[in-house]
C-alpha cells in the first residue's frame, strides 16, 4: 500500500507534516506494509491535508484529514472522495505544465523520468539552437509572468547576441498576492524548471543560470537547492549535460523582501548585489542583462512549460488556447473562495466560470462582489465582466490584465475604497524610488484617497488625473499599473467613492 501526502507549503500550513508523521507512527504500530510518499500538491488547497491511498486500485482521495483522524482513516472509517483524478476540480483541468505536480515525489529523478521528464531535453539535444528557438516560437508560448511577451522571440534575441558568457535567469520572485503557481511547481516538480532552463541554455548559447526567488519561500528554496544537487550528480546539469558535451549549470538565489525585484531589470540589479532599482530600457536585458551580458529573463511557469513543449511537440501545445493566447495557463483561485487552488486549463475559460463554477463562489457564502486579477497591480472586475474569456488580449480589452493568472475573490463586505487606498499604499512602500510618478505619485495617491474618504468628492477628478500620470510616466509596471486596481475600483463602484462616507474605518 502506498500513501501519498503533499509536502507543499499550502498543505503544511494545514498540518500535512503532522499527518504524515501520524501515518508513519500508525504504520509502525500496526505493522502495516505501507509506504508514505511525500508529493507536491494536487492543487486542491481546500482539501489539504489531502491523503491519497493506493491499495492497488488507484489513488483514492481523503481530505481534509487531520493528524487526529489518521487512526480512523486507516481503520477505513473515513469516507473517500473517490479517485483523486475524478474529483471534478481536477478532472476538468488540462494539466501540461503541472502534469507531474502532486503525482510524483518532487525529489525523485527516477520518478520524474518515469512520468515523461527529460524526454524534452533529450529531444532538444538533437536540435540546433535555431531549431530549439523555432520550436518555442511555434508553440506560441508567451511570458507567464504577466507581460505576455513571446518567449521564442526573447530567446532568439539572446541567441543572436555575441558574448563570451550568456545567462538564463529565472524570475521566481512571485510577489503578487493571489499567485502561488511558481511556488507550487518549485516545491512540487522542481526538475521541470531545471530541464526548462537547460533547454533555454541550449537554445541561446547560455551556460549559466540563476533562479532568483523570494525569502518568503523557504520550502521552495530548500526543494530547489536539493533538486539542483541531484540533477548535478546525475549529469543533467554540469559540464556535460546528459553526455552531450554541452555545459549548463545553475544556482538558486534569494531576494530580501523587495516586491519590485519581480520587475526584470530590478531583479538583475538585485542579483548583481545592488539596490533593486529599475533600469531604463533599452538596453534590453536580452542584450545587456546580468553583469551586462545577454540574458534571458523568464518566469518560472514559462520555463517549466518548455519541457512539455519539447516532449509533445510545439504543434500539440499550440492547439490549446484562444487566439494569440496559446496553450494552457495555471490559474490560481484564491482569497475568499470556497474551492481555492491551482487550476490549469487552456486559455479561454470565462472568468465567471472560474470563480463561481470551479471556485464554488465565496468561502463566506456571501455574494461575490469583485475579483482582482493579476496581483496588486491588477484590475478589480465586477460581476458584469464575468463573461470575459481568460486570455491576454481579452482582459486587455476589458481594462485589465491577466498578470501571473492569480484571482483574488472578494465578497460583498469588501470596502473598495480601502482596497484602492491599499494599492497606492503598497506602491508607496515598495517603490524603488527611481522615477517620480511612482515614488511621489503613490504617496499623493494615498493622501488623495484619504481626502475622498473624508468627504471631499472633488478629489476624485484629481485621483483620476494622478493615475493617468502614473500610467504614462512610470518607468516600470509598479508605478505604471498601480492605477489599474485604483481606477477599476473607482469605475466599477463609484458610489463607494462618492465622498459621503465617514473617514473612520
Amino acid at each position: 500500500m502506498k500513501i501519498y501526502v503533499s509536502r507543499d507549503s499550502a498543505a503544511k500550513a494545514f498540518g500535512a507534516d503532522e499527518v504524515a508523521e501520524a501515518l508513519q507512527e500508525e504504520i509502525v504500530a500496526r505493522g502495516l506494509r505501507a509506504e508514505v510518499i511525500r508529493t507536491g500538491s494536487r492543487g486542491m488547497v481546500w482539501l489539504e491535508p489531502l491523503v491519497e491511498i493506493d491499495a492497488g486500485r488507484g489513488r483514492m482521495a481523503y481530505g481534509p484529514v487531520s493528524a487526529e483522524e489518521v487512526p480512523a482513516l486507516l481503520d477505513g472509517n473515513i469516507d473517500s472522495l473517490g479517485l483523486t483524478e475524478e474529483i471534478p476540480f481536477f478532472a476538468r483541468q488540462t494539466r501540461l505544465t503541472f502534469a507531474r505536480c502532486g503525482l510524483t515525489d518532487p525529489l525523485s529523478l527516477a520518478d520524474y523520468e518515469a512520468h515523461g521528464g527529460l524526454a524534452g531535453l533529450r529531444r532538444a539535444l538533437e536540435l540546433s539552437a535555431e531549431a530549439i528557438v523555432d520550436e518555442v516560437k511555434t508553440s506560441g508560448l508567451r511570458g507567464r509572468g504577466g507581460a505576455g511577451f513571446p518567449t521564442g522571440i526573447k530567446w532568439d534575441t539572446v541567441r543572436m547576441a555575441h558574448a563570451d558568457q550568456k545567462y538564463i535567469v529565472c524570475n521566481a520572485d512571485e510577489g503578487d498576492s493571489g499567485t502561488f503557481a511558481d511556488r507550487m511547481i518549485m516545491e512540487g516538480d522542481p526538475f521541470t524548471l531545471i530541464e526548462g532552463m537547460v533547454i533555454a541554455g541550449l537554445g541561446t548559447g547560455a551556460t549559466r543560470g540563476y533562479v532568483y526567488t523570494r525569502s518568503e519561500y523557504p520550502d521552495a528554496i530548500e526543494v530547489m537547492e536539493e533538486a539542483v544537487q541531484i540533477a548535478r550528480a546525475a549529469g543533467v546539469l554540469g559540464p556535460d549535460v546528459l553526455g552531450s558535451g554541452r555545459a549548463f549549470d545553475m544556482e538558486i538565489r534569494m531576494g530580501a523582501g523587495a516586491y519590485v525585484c519581480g520587475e526584470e531589470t530590478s531583479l538583475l540589479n538585485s542579483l548583481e548585489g545592488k539596490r533593486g532599482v529599475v533600469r531604463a530600457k533599452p538596453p534590453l536585458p536580452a542584450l545587456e542583462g546580468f553583469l551586462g551580458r545577454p540574458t534571458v529573463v523568464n518566469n518560472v511557469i514559462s520555463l517549466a512549460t518548455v519541457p512539455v513543449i519539447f516532449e509533445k511537440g510545439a504543434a500539440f501545445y499550440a492547439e490549446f488556447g484562444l487566439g494569440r493566447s496559446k496553450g494552457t495557463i495555471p490559474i490560481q483561485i484564491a482569497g475568499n473562495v470556497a474551492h481555492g487552488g491551482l487550476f490549469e486549463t487552456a486559455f479561454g475559460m470565462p472568468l465567471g466560470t472560474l470563480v463561481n463554477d470551479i471556485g464554488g463562489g465565496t468561502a463566506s457564502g456571501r455574494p461575490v462582489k469583485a475579483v482582482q486579477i493579476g496581483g496588486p497591480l491588477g484590475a478589480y472586475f465586477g460581476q458584469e465582466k464575468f463573461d470575459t474569456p481568460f486570455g491576454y488580449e481579452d482582459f486587455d480589452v476589458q481594462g485589465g490584465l491577466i498578470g501571473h493568472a492569480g484571482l483574488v475573490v472578494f465578497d460583498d463586505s469588501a470596502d473598495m475604497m480601502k482596497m484602492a487606498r491599499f494599492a497606492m499604499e503598497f506602491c508607496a512602500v515598495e517603490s524603488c524610488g527611481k522615477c517620480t510618478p511612482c515614488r511621489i505619485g503613490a504617496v499623493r495617491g494615498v493622501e488623495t484617497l484619504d481626502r475622498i474618504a473624508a468627504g471631499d468628492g472633488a478629489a476624485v477628478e484629481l485621483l483620476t488625473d494622478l493615475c493617468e500620470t502614473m500610467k504614462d510616466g512610470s518607468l516600470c509596471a509598479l508605478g505604471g499599473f498601480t492605477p489599474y486596481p485604483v481606477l477599476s475600483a473607482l469605475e466599477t463602484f463609484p458610489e463607494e467613492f462618492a465622498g459621503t462616507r465617514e473617514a473612520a474605518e
Partner: protein
Amino acid sequence: MDPQPTAEEIREILGKHLHLEGPLLPILHDLQDTFGYLPQEAVPQIAGALNLSVAEVTGVISFYHDFRKAPAGRHVLKLCRAEACQSMGSDALADRVLSLLGVDWHGTTTDGRITVEPVYCLGLCACAPAAMLDGRVHGALTEAKATKILEALA
C-alpha cells in the same frame, strides 16, 4: 545578549561567498542568519572585500525589508497583509494579534519573546489568512488558532 561578532567570524563568512557572481546578497543573508541581524561593524569589512564604498553597502542593506540592524525577538511572526489575506479578514486578525501581544508592526514584546512583522504574500493565498512563524507556515488562521500557536512558544 550574544557577544559581538569578531572580525575573524565576519571574514570567514565573507570568504564563503567571494567566488560568486553578485556575492553581496548571499553575504548579507549569511551574516543575518548567523548573528540574527546585520552587525554594523561588518559593513566596512564587506565594502573592503568587494571593493565597494561603505555608502554603497549601506544603501543595499537599507533597500531590502529583510535586513535588520538589531536582533529580533526569539521568535519572528510574519503576518500576511496582502489582498488575498485581506479578503479573508487578515486586517482584523492582525489587529487582534498585535493588541494581544501589546506591540505594533515591527515591534518586539517587552520580554523579547516575539517580533511581529508584516509580509506581503507568502504564496498561501488559497488558505488565507496566512502567517509564518520562525519559517513554518500556517493557513486559515483564526484568532483562536493564532493564540494557541503563540501560547505554545517559549
